[in-house]
Each structure stands twice: as C-alpha cells, then as structure tokens.
C-alpha cells in the first residue's frame, strides 16, 4: 500500500534549514495498522503529511498503491487523495459552521457523489459511529468523544484505502480515547489500512507495528502480535 524509499524532507527559511525527515524507508501493507511514535519535533507529522499526500518529499521515492507520487503537484495530489485517504486529527478539525451531517457530507460533495447516495452513505456511517441522533447538531454542541466519532465518520464515508490518524485520542479523556481506539481497531479488522501518529503507548498497543522516530530517522520498528511485542 505504502512504499517509501530514502525519503527526505528539508524545510528552508531565510535563516535556517531544518531536516524534518532524514532518509526514511517504510513499507506499509494493505490492512496493516502502523503506529508512529517519537518525541515532539521528530518529524512524525511531516511524515504523516507526506504519506497523506498533503506534502511532497524533498527527495526520495514514495509509491502510494504502486503509483509514484513523490513529485506530484498540489492538484494531482488532491485528486489522488480524494476518496483514497481519510484523516482523523487530534483536534477533530470539524467545521464549526457545518452540522454533523454536513461535515460528514463534505468529502462526498468534493467527490461529486449524488445527493441520494450521499444521504445513504452518511446515514450508514453515522449509524455505525452511533452518532445519528446528533446529525443536525453543530460540533460545539457535542462532547469531545462525539466530535471525534464524527471526524472518524467523515474519514470513513468515502471508503478510503488508508486512514491516517494524528494523535486521535490526544484531546479525549481515557474512556472516550479507548472508545476511539476500539473503533479504529474495528475498522482495521474490517480491512482498513491505518497509520497513526501517537504519544500514547496504550494507543500504540492497538497497532500491528510501532515505528519510533527520532530526529527524522526511524530508530526502532516493533511488530506486535496481540499484546506480545516482537522487536524487529
């Protein structure tokens, strides 16, 4: 699903040059659940941005579903991303002015899916996320856990090949956090490929594989089977 070879990302400003990702190699199989861990500023988010086709690497190769996407322009990346990648964020990133229904509808509109199919899909996904009863509410009327469920529903509604989660439980209490992680696990069990950035060991424990980043480099990679961790 994801094949990254010798990937580098360097940010340049007028005064300084920062290497965010340094010669990273990473393969993620279809249906896999990978957690990326590491201290703040180690390049986790930069890597997630590149994986999610939001940004281009400075150098190196990135094959997404066997397509080389390393040097694509923004419009091409957007078109590749549409319907293929779903995002879940720490801060939920729901649009305050749109209702739950409309927030979930957003990616379907950009995919130009017809109104009746949109309705069908949204109803289904909201039911699955157990949030249908709040579909006409606005984000600020929901609890954090409910907001994150809406965000996941929005990510899922397009049936993406890949779900990217950026610290999905970071803004939630432990109970809601656990619920969200269970949900992601279920999605993965249903066949979704998930790449998750997290600081939490508990959250990471849900993944098949945990990658540790430090100063833009992968320093360790651990495979997990159930609760047994195997050092690769």
């Amino acid at each position, binding site marked *: 699903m994801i094949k990254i070879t010798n990937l580098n990302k360097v940010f340049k400003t007028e005064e300084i040059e920062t290497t965010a990702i340094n010669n990273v190699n990473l393969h993620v199989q279809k249906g896999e659940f990978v957690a990326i861990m590491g201290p703040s500023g180690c390049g986790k988010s930069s890597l997630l*941005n590149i994986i999610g086709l*939001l*940004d281009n690497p400075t150098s190196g190769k990135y094959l997404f579903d066997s397509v080389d996407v390393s040097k694509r322009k*923004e*419009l091409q990346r*957007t078109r590749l991303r549409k319907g293929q990648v779903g995002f879940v*964020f720490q801060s939920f*990133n729901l649009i305050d002015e749109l209702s739950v229904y409309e927030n979930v509808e957003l990616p379907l509109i*950009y995919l130009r899916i017809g109104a009746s199919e949109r309705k069908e899909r949204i109803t289904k996904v909201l039911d699955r996320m157990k949030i249908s009863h709040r579909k006409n509410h606005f984000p600020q009327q929901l609890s954090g856990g409910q907001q994150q469920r809406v965000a996941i529903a929005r990510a899922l509604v397009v049936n993406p090949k890949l779900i990217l989660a950026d610290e999905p439980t970071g803004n939630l209490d432990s109970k809601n956090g656990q619920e969200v992680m269970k949900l992601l696990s279920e999605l993965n069990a249903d066949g979704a490929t998930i790449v998750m950035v997290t600081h939490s060991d508990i959250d990471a424990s849900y993944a098949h594989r945990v990658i540790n980043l430090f100063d833009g480099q992968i320093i360790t990679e651990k495979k997990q089977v159930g609760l047994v961790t195997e050092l690769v």
Partner: protein
Amino acid sequence: MILLNIKLAFRNLIKNKFFSILNILGLSSGIAVSVLVFMWVADELSFDKQHKNLDNIFFAISNQTYDNGNEVHTKCTPFPLKDALQKNYPEVETVCRFTEWGNFPVGNGDKKFVTDMIVAADPEFTDIFTLELIEGDINCLNNCENIIITKKVANTFFGNKSALGQPLLINSIKEFTVGAVVADNPKNTTLDFNIIMPIIQLTKLFGADFSNWYGNWPSTIVQTKPNSNVTILSQSIKNLNKENGSENIELSLKPLKNDRLYTNNGIGYRLQYIYLFIGIGIIILLIACINFVNISTAKTQKRAVEVGIRKVNGAEKRNIVMQFLTEKVVIIFICMCVSLIMAYSAIPLFNQISGKSITFTEVFDLKFSLGFLAIGIATTIFASVYPSLYMSSFSAMRALKPLGSLTKSKKISFRNILVIIQFSLSVALIICTIVINSQLKHLMNTNLGYDKENLIYVELNGASTMKDEVLIQELNKLPQIVNCTKADKGPFLGGNNTGGFDWEGKDPKSSVLISITQVDNNYLQTLGIKLAEGNNFSNIDYFKDDVQEYEVILNQEAIRQMQLKDPIGKSFGFGWKGRIIGIVEDYHFESLHSKIEPLVLIPITTNAPILIVRLQKGNIHSTLEKVKEVWQNINPQEPLTTGFFNDKLNSMYTSEKRISNLFSSFSFIAIFISCLGLLGLSAFAAEQRTKEIGIRKVNGASVYNILFMLNKSFIQLVFISIIIGIPLAYLFMEKWLQKFAYKTEMSWLMFVAAALTALIIAVITVSWQSVKSAMQNPVKSLKYE
C-alpha cells in the same frame, strides 16, 4: 454545493455579527454613494434628450477677438446670419433665431402674474425642437400675433378651460393670442421657456434691425441635414461675419448635445465636474471595497484551518475559490439591497446638497438597473476575487497545525498597503474639504469695493418712469430707508464687455472692452462706492433736460487699460458724446471668478429695470414689509419681486457651495468607512495577539504599554497615509483654485488640521478595541489560547 455555500455564508454572517455589521455597513455606504453619484451623472447626461433631431442641432458661436488679447465666445449672433446660412449652405436643413426676452408681468383680464422665461423665436423653432403639442397649431408662430405657451402657463391663466385663441398681454405693451399650448419642458432642458412669441415682434416693439451684421443679439440655431459633414460646414461659415464687416469675429458651430458640458469655446468645465464626481464615487467605492477585503483577509487566521480541513477532505483550489466567492457574493448582494435603501433615503438630502431634483422612480429604469449591476460586478471584482484567491492559497497542512501558527511577516503586508491607500484618500478628501470651504469663505468675505450689507433690489418690471419716481419718493419717506438708486442692473449680474468706445487721446489701434452700467446720481452713495478722483453725477434730468453730452464715470481699471493720463474732463463716447467727470475705485461687479474689468457708469436714460435700496441696520424684515406696502399702494396690479443683495451675491457661488457640501459629505463618508475598516482590523489584531498580550502583562507590561503596542502599527500606517495624502490634495486643489481670480492661501495649518483630524479619529477608533484587550485579565487570555 452552492446551496451549502450560501447556507454557510449566512451562518458565518450570524456567527460574526460584529464584523458582519462592519462589513455590510461599510460596503453598503460605499455602494450607496456610488448609486447617488451614478444618478447625478445620469441626470447630467440626460439633458435635451427629448429632441429627435438632437444629433443635428447646432448653435452658431461668435468668437470675438480684441486687441488687448481679450476673447469673447458668445451665442449672440447678428440677425441676418439666419438667412445667410439658410440660402448658401446645402448642408443646412433649417435655421432659427432664439432669444430670451425676460421675466415680465403677463395678464389676462384681471389675472396678472410675473412670468419668467418669455422668449422670442422664429417659426422654425418648432421644426427643429421636439415639442409635445397639447392643443392648437404648432406652426402658429407664422402669424406674428400668436404665441405658444406651456401647459403650466395655460393652467395658471385658464385653469381647465382651453387657452386657444385667448389674449395674453405681455409686459403691458403687447397683446398676443394663444396659438398653441405645449407640454411643460422636461426639467433637463437647455432651452427653457414658458411663452414663445414670434421673433419678428422685436422689430415692431423695439426696432431691432434684422439686416444689421454689426449687432449681436439672438442665438442662431442650425439644424443640419442628416449625415452632413459639420466640420466642413463649420469651417465654411467661419468668415461670414468678417465678409460682412466684423473683422474680429469668426463663427463656429457647437452641438446642442455638448451645450451643457462645454463652454462656448469648447472647455468642458461641467464635464470636469462629471469626471470629478465619477472619480469620487470610485474612490469611495474603492475605500469600501478595501474595508471588505481587509476584514475578509483579516479573518485568515480563523478560516485558514477551515480551508485546510476542506482540502484534506478533497477540496480542490477551485472549490475553495468558489466557496469564498459565493460567500462574498451573498454579502455583496445583501449590501446592494441595503445600499438601495440607503440611497433611496438619502435622495432628499442629496438633492438639497447637489441642487438636483432627482426622484428614485424617475431614474429607476433599465439603464439604472444595468448601471447598478455594473457597480455590483465592479464591487464583486474589487472586493471578493482577491480574498477568495488568497484564502484558497492556504495549504492543506494548515489543518494539521495548531491555531495561531500563521507566520507574521515584518514586511508591509498587502492589507497594510490597502489601509494606506484608504487613509491617503480620506486625508486628501479632508484637505480638499477644508480648502474648498476656506475658498468659499474667502469669496463670501472679500471686500467687494462697496458695502453689500443691508441692500435690497426691487425689480421694476418695466413700469413707467413716472411710477418709479413716485416709488422712490415714497420709499425715501420711510425712516428705515437710507437711500435709493435706479440702475439697469445690479453689480451681481456681471459685465457686458463691449468694444468700440472712443475717447480723447485714444491710440487708434487700441480696442479696450468696457462694461456699461446705467445708473442715477444716487448710485455711488447708495452702494458706498468710493470716488478716487473727480465728482459724482450732477442732478441733470436726462428725461427732461436737453442734454448734449453725458456725464461719464470710469473705474480705475478702465483708466489703466485705456492708458489715459489726467482723465477728468476728457471726452469719452460710444455713438453718443460724453465727458469723464469722475473715477471710482475698482469694485466687483462680476463674480470673483474673474478679475475686475474696465467699467463705465453712465446716466440712466431709459426705464430702469432695477431699484437698489439701502435699509437701516436691524429689523430688516419689518422694513421689507413696509417696502411691500409702498409698492402695493403704487402698483396694486403688479406683484413685487425683491431680494437681498447678499443672497444674489451668494448665488454666484452656488456651484462652489454645492461642491463644498458634497466634498464635506463625501469626506465624512470616506473617513467613516475607513474607520469601520480600521475598527475591524484593530479588533482582529487584538484577537490575534491575545496570547502575546497575556504574556506581556504577566511579565509586567502596563495597560499603557499594551495600548501603545497595539496602536503603534496602525498609527504608523495613518502617518504614511498623511504623507501621501497631503501632496495629492495639494496638487488637486492648486488646479481647482486656478479658476478663481481671487483665491484663498493654502496654509500649512489646513494640512495640519486635516492630518490631526485623521490621526485623532484613527487613534480613537483603534483604541476603542485596544483598550478592551489591554484591560483583559492575562490569566483569561492565556487560558483562552
């Protein structure tokens, strides 16, 4: 998608009420001003459109040159010009002569009213101009006893009854028969009239010589055949006057459609005002659009995350542009509706300021709708394209970054440049307002060379000399009357530059243009005009005594131009014989747009059209009542037409007064809109820097420090605007003042006053928001972040 965008636009409007109100109020005011300016311009350009032959109608212009370099361009032409044009030029379809006769009492039996705009014209007048016939024969002027009257006149005298065949006695000297009634003239017409009498009557009543090529009296109006080459025709008639003895006169043709916008020598003064107002309309709209852009882009911080989320969820750049364009168009649409209401409500005030009588229903036609749409499109382009493109440029990664991490550039941002443009224009408008007001004050307060206070004029309406004398005697009996004098015109009607004078010791080549005013021997005393040399008129009665020689008084400018030494006692004539008995100090007998020209005062020998009366100070209005009583006793049938000198003099500066009022209003609106924008920007800046303010306060910053920090950047912008606005206004005002012979000085104080006004208003505006932020508890702001 569009529906969702519209829904979102409304939700955003409601959510950000404060900024929505600022945005809508600012932009609506800007559009409303543009609508009013558009209406004003449309009204200015609508003159004479009722004439079917408009494109083929021309005035003959007499361009006169004199030896001292003076030029006169007038529509007054010789009577025989009509026949010459009609007979010899195949391009000419028809020609007519037209002249205003004046305002006179018109009577039918017991009914008698002073009627203005009584004109004389050839029968061809009705062929050339499009008049809407109500009753009678439109060609009735072929009978020299007939007149054409307007519906208004017909209603005044005959009510609902037919006016046809009814007699009307004009100026107590000639009775005419109504031959036709036509609809009242539209208000936007160059050739206005209430009564048209046959021009041939001028020979019968006043002995006008229709074969004389030397006198210039009526306007000659030419209708050319369709598709004629008017340039060639104008060139070929150029020397007609010369060929008939007037060496210094050349003829040209001026299109009727240009008559209002251009002077007779082709200078587009009126057109300049149209451009000026269009310019001001655009400036105000621009200022309003800048507000809109600034407030829209200031929301960047908040909306950037939304753009990021949308992009992450598959939105392409065009989707984002579309979304923001829809939002802006919704707001602009609301603004346009609000602006229509504002413009509608402001029409009475606007009419009062601009001297127009525009009504909304009158202008609300297809052209207006298209113009309004054009304003809407221009506003959309100005105000929404840039913010939409700007917002769409944010990368999807913005969604992944925490709020408030937008980098702040130290360079002057585009938004700052817009604020500078906005305030530069506002400062320039304030300066223009101050200078125009100062010039107006200067015009009103300039010493005219006579005492204009407590003076009234009384129009004598051609009453007999006997009655005039009785009136003067009766008025002089009133203790409230200081003095009375008869004249052929007041010193507010301008001069009548005439050449052909002769005097003792004159250089044969010299040809000085001198204005003539006929007065009696009380004129100097009544007006308070000072004699510089010689004596006042003696008590000769020119109506009774057999006088061989006129007494003549010249002004100092005349003596200067005539280069006359020891003028007293020298002969001076103009067809008649005269002798210079006195020299008066120069006084203004024209508006202060022009310098004092040469003037000759001669004794009045005909029925005086005007009586000038000096009243005692105080109780002016009760004195005026007494004057009315005296008039009624002597002329019970005649209505009294009177007024104050000051009002007449002020009316010479009506156009300046209107411009002054309009500039004051426009600069108020400009500064108001600019401040709305500044208020919005300062609110956003304070919001954006909430965390910084909190940290600074925790670290010991005082309220004053925070206030200074927040206000500094805005005040810097206003300073830059002042530096740009001052030279801009100076150059513009210097050009405007050039048309006045007597102008105010543009002192540095005016610029300081304008700069301080802008600065104080800006500081108050910005501080309103800054104080609130500076006073906030830092714990709150840090927690918020």
